């Protein structure tokens, strides 16, 4: 019996060790970013434009740029993704078409993000002549987020018990009424979970917007979707790879990283609160 107890003791503690390792990585990660970037954060840093070849001043234009790109691309990908998921789960016929669509989605989900950048450059910037702009960046990021949102929504819709659908149809509801009144409201919290994950992903993507939306430097706030913008991840990239004052640029890059993390947390936080409110309201 002692052997079994010893085995259990070892097993549990090995698991604890692994959890500790994961946790340590997270702590070290946060420490590195905040230790190097935390002291940069000031009111000026958040509200001023960069000055003197990006060695002084703030990152305000990049915050604005990332904020708009994230919101707009999710605003574009969410409805399209949910509608596609509804089609795939409720209407899709014939079976071979569904299979092709699904293969396409899964392939898209696995495409490296730099390829999305090239795709956006070719299609939105050059072919549609949207130029390097918020619009091109939004569409490119939207295409990147769509497979994630479709997969999450499809799972969410599939996890709605079949009983609900049958009950609604048996009461003389049409397919459309059943989807709008029963299936979507029930699936919404899980759809939002998928959306939250894509928000983090989209806000942090560098490569897709490198050629489609990001600019090295602008003092101006964007006035329309056809303006090019500074964005946080690409700003970090620029600070670390370009310019000639590496010593002065590096702290700003870390400061920008802190802001990016905070922004992602903020946007996800809002989505989590919305989800919480819906879950509380739902009579499950």
């Amino acid at each position, binding site marked *: 019996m002692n052997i079994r107890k010893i085995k259990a003791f070892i097993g549990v503690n090995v698991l604890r060790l692994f959890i500790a390792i994961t946790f340590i990585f997270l702590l070290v990660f946060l420490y590195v970013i905040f230790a190097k970037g935390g002291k940069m954060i000031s009111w000026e840093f958040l509200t001023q434009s960069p000055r003197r070849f990006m060695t002084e001043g703030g990152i305000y234009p990049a915050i604005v740029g990332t904020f708009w790109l994230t919101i707009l691309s999710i605003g574009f990908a969410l409805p399209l993704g949910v509608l596609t998921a509804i089609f795939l789960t409720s209407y899709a016929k014939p079976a071979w078409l569904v299979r092709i669509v699904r293969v396409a989605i899964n392939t898209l989900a696995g495409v490296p993000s730099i390829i999305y950048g090239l795709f956006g450059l070719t299609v939105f910037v050059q072919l549609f002549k949207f130029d390097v702009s918020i619009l091109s960046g939004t569409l490119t990021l939207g295409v990147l987020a769509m497979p994630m949102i479709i997969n999450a929504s499809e799972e969410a819709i599939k996890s709605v*018990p079949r*009983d*609900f659908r*049958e*009950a*609604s*149809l*048996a*009461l*003389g*509801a*049409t397919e459309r*009424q059943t989807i709008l*009144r*029963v299936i979507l*409201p*029930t699936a919404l919290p899980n759809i939002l979970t998928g959306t939250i994950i894509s928000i983090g992903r989209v806000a942090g993507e560098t490569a897709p917007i490198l050629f489609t939306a990001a600019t090295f430097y602008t003092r101006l706030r964007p006035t329309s979707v056809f303006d090019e913008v500074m964005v946080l991840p690409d700003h970090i990239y620029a600070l670390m790879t370009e310019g000639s004052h590496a010593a002065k640029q590096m702290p700003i890059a870390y400061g920008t990283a802190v802001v990016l993390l905070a922004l992602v947390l903020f946007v996800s936080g809002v989505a989590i609160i919305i989800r919480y409110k819906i879950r509380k309201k*739902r*009579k*499950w």
Partner: protein
Amino acid sequence: MVNNVHINTEKLNLWFGDNHVLKDVNIPVYDKKVTALIGPSGCGKSTLLRCFNRMNDLIPETKITGNVNLYKQNIYEPKTDVTSVRTKVGMVFQKPNPFPKSIYKNAAYGLNIHGINKSKINEIVEKSLRDACLWDEVKDRLHESAFSLSGGQQQRLCIARALANEPEIILLDEPTSALDPQSTAKIEELCLDLKHQVTILIVTHNIAQAGRISDYTAFMYLGELVEFGETKKMFTVPKDKRTEAYLSGVFG
């Protein structure tokens, strides 16, 4: 008293893929009577039930031949409006399946989707909850979740939800198999009350239940309708040997 046929099947055959589930079923269901469908598991009684409101349409690769006539009108004709059939022919499922909404919204669901006037909805919701013998238990908590009710209450809510559409026929698919004896007794009592307003067709595993509440009984075996008749007669003198064997518990 003359019995009018409310809904009946003519030479009804049904296949799921290659599986021949219903074989030449001819069954009448009489107006404002309780008809019980009995038979061993897998004999096709639930499938037959789901033919009366075209719920089998939801299952892919289903093939149906023959007629199901609602007042002489075949509901499987191509031009049939399925939603209107399902409004006239209500259904209650084996497992209570209220929506994740409030008690009130559950009862009002059918009315809302049919665009009934808001002021009338209150009235009809109360009437259906009363008809389902649930009103007194829920009148003070109409806006609480339907999931806060007990299983038996949930099933009566599902009956109320079906009644709110003011159907002519209610199909009950083993409505008490997931319930305790007390809740079962309440639902049986309810069936006897309701048959004054609607025609009831009930699938049951419980032979005694069929005996207690039904006026007519249909015995099905391996997809065939073996025997149909007045419950009293069939339970005392079954015509077919298989019916006799099933009723006396030889198989089932």
